[in-house]
């Protein structure tokens, strides 16, 4: 468990820049707003939920709180979604909820200036541009900036009960 909110580093002096947690899914690098991240832990002890989409791995006990676990690798249709001792769960706070997302690894925390963030192109089929806040470019790396809140509360994620659901 790492407390990331403390590791803001010296670069935090510039008010315009935002900090991102960088993680990888397969060969791709993604970034989410660091302020949404509660903690990082290993993947263990997940109880399967029947009749849920495949990318919802189930629920786990996070210090007495029942937290759903979503595998973003399955959601983004990546092959090779393996679970081993290196598999990482990023626990994020979105809205009033706590949700865990499974990723291959967490690499670092990075500050991005507004000019480093480019608009995301309209093309994604598995990942609609609605859920992206842009593409970050750092040297020759491309970071996909995910609006994690919008993604996880979206209807297609089936994580949050929609009002139209009828329940």
């Amino acid at each position, binding site marked *: 468990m790492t407390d990331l909110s403390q590791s803001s580093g010296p670069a935090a002096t510039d008010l315009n820049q935002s900090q991102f947690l960088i993680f990888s899914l397969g060969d791709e690098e993604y970034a989410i707003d660091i302020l949404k991240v509660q903690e990082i832990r290993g993947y263990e*002890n997940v*109880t*399967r*939920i*029947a*009749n*849920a989409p495949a990318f919802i791995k*189930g*629920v*786990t*006990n996070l*210090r*007495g*709180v*029942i*937290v*759903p676990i979503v595998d973003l690798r399955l959601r983004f249709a990546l092959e090779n979604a393996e679970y081993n001792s290196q598999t990482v769960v990023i626990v994020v706070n979105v809205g009033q*909820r*706590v*949700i865990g997302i499974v990723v291959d690894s967490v690499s670092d925390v990075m500050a991005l200036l507004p000019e480093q963030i480019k608009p995301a192109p309209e093309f994604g089929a598995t990942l609609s541009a609605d859920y992206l806040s842009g593409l970050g470019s750092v040297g020759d790396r491309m970071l996909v900036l995910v609006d994690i809140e919008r993604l996880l509360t979206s209807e297609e994620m*089936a*994580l*949050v*009960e929609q009002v139209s659901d*009828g*329940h």
Partner: protein
Amino acid sequence: MDIQDFSDTFFEEAEELLADMEGHLLALDPAVPDIEQLNAIFRAAHSIKGGAGTFGFEALQRTTHIFENLLDHARRGELNLRGEIIDAFLATKDELSDQLAAYRNGTTPDQAAFEQACHVLNSIADQEIGDGQKTSGTSVPEGSAATQPSSQASQAMQSLMVTLKNVSEQDRSLLIEELGQLGDIVEQHSDAGQCRVILATTEGADAIEAVMCFIVEPEQVSIAPVASTTPPSVDKASIAGKAPATDTLSAKKASPPPVRPAKAKSTQENGSIRVAVDKVDQIINLVGELIITQSMLDQTVSELQGSEHAALLSGMSLLQRNARDLQEAVMSIRMVPMDYVFSRFPRLVRDLAGKLGKQIELVTEGESTELDKSLTERIIDPLTHLVRNSLDHGIELPDTRVAAGKPTTGRLTLSAQHQGGNILIEVIDDGAGLNRERILAKANENGLNVSDAMSDEEVWQLIFAPGFSTAAEISDVSGRGVGMDVVKRNIQAMGGHVEILSRPGQGTTTRIVLPLTLAILDGMSVKVGAEMFILPLSTVIESLQPTHQDLYTMAGDDLVLRVREEYLPVVALHETLDVANACHQPTESIAVIVQGEGRRYALLVDDLVGQQQVVVKNLETNYRRVPGISAATILGDGSVALILDIADLHRLHQRKRRDACSVLTDGAQQLSSSGHPTTESTSEILTTTAEDMTP
């Protein structure tokens, strides 16, 4: 300690006193009042007055003062109690609660309400107390009224010796200051252990004690009348003429000691502290964590062997037992009996019945059913509304009831019970029932989509539509406040739903079904494949191993199990919840006979693991509702187990079956339409939609 701490204590004690007072007032029979109850009401008013004086809550002090005088007359038999007078007393109690609430919030009570309350009490005093009796009781205060116009003291000036034992220096000076406000301090001695004050006062000994009790324990104070020393400040002439009256009063004052121990005892019994609910929740969570840590340690330790670890092993088993006891104790904190809710209704029913001119008997059942505190608090408002509705629209006037061949006294039943992992709260009246035609007509008027072909259940659900109120329904009793749509919304917000059963002429039953969210559940853990599930024990009837002879198939592959001449549908848990590596042979599985929402079936599982109490954790906090699952819990090893929703599991089973069926028989639908399964599944669709509409 500062004055704020004292006033907090006062507010809490005063609230308890007022609640006691109300209970006694309601139980009081005006024809033959129980003297002990009158005494108890008097003492409550008296203690509040004392405290109010101490903290300078003038309106409260004055109201209780007048109230107390009246009560004093009543307990001496000089005031003949009647229903209206008790009503007035109850109204006074409400006014006192309001005043108390105002002071607690740091504001001044409503002046008009205060004056009104005083006026009502004074007019009772003027009209009801007979002239002949009046002289003996009130002549002395009339004499002293000239010197003390603000307080209509009912008791004569007298000297009291107040002895304080083992009181700290700081409290002592505070107490003496308080005494100074109650009367004139004539003499004062103090040494290390105790402090004696001789006080000339018009207050009674118990009033002084009541004030003291907010600061010190009752045992630390003793108060005794001083016979010889008459305070110099008193105008002897004014008393001399009325000496006989003074004597009767002081004789009376000597009698309080027998009642005082009873009072001290009741405060001890009610001893409680108020704690914020989130603090309790935090403790529950922490204890849960502790239990998990303990079982982890236990696992590690169990691998150790040999005598050198004997002390560690015995320590571990002690830890285990203590941790379990702790968990049980902590969990019980949150649970309160339904009595907590039901006890508010006798008053409401009494008042409303009086106002509506109806005769109503209130019956409560299942008061000891335990419910989570936060749910009991949230259920009060909806329940109040339903009770008001039943009284106003349900139960008829006595004449109408007689004409309908019913007893004049209507019966309103409030009941609570645990059923099928839910808590069932019912409001049952034996009134006229709902009027189908009027509801339909009103719904039409409101532009709702209705037809005469709708079933009764659907029609009853219409009254939950927003803004739905038939013109005949508006009255000052239930026309105000929340509507039925708000009732429904509140209950839904708690994760429950409302059902209405009504038969014309026989009455209406409104049933609130609350899920066990937050509650603690007695569960049976079962294993399917490698997965563990919890069955609410309340839904389990029995379990058995099915044999070939008792299993029958119906329409191909629908299984039924014969249990003592009853055929039960079979639901295989592994199939409904897609569990891998489960036992597929019914005869090698265990059939658990379960019942939910009146439906009974056999649930096939691989293994029964055991029974345990589990804390119900809401799945919807961070996730969503899952079909067939009511909630989750955390097992001893820290993993999550899902709690099955028996009724919903059956629906899920039917749905899956249907889906599978429609894939298979896509084109051949017509062929099987005459068969039994289809008719069954059609009726299933209907019930499912009806139930889906309800939550």
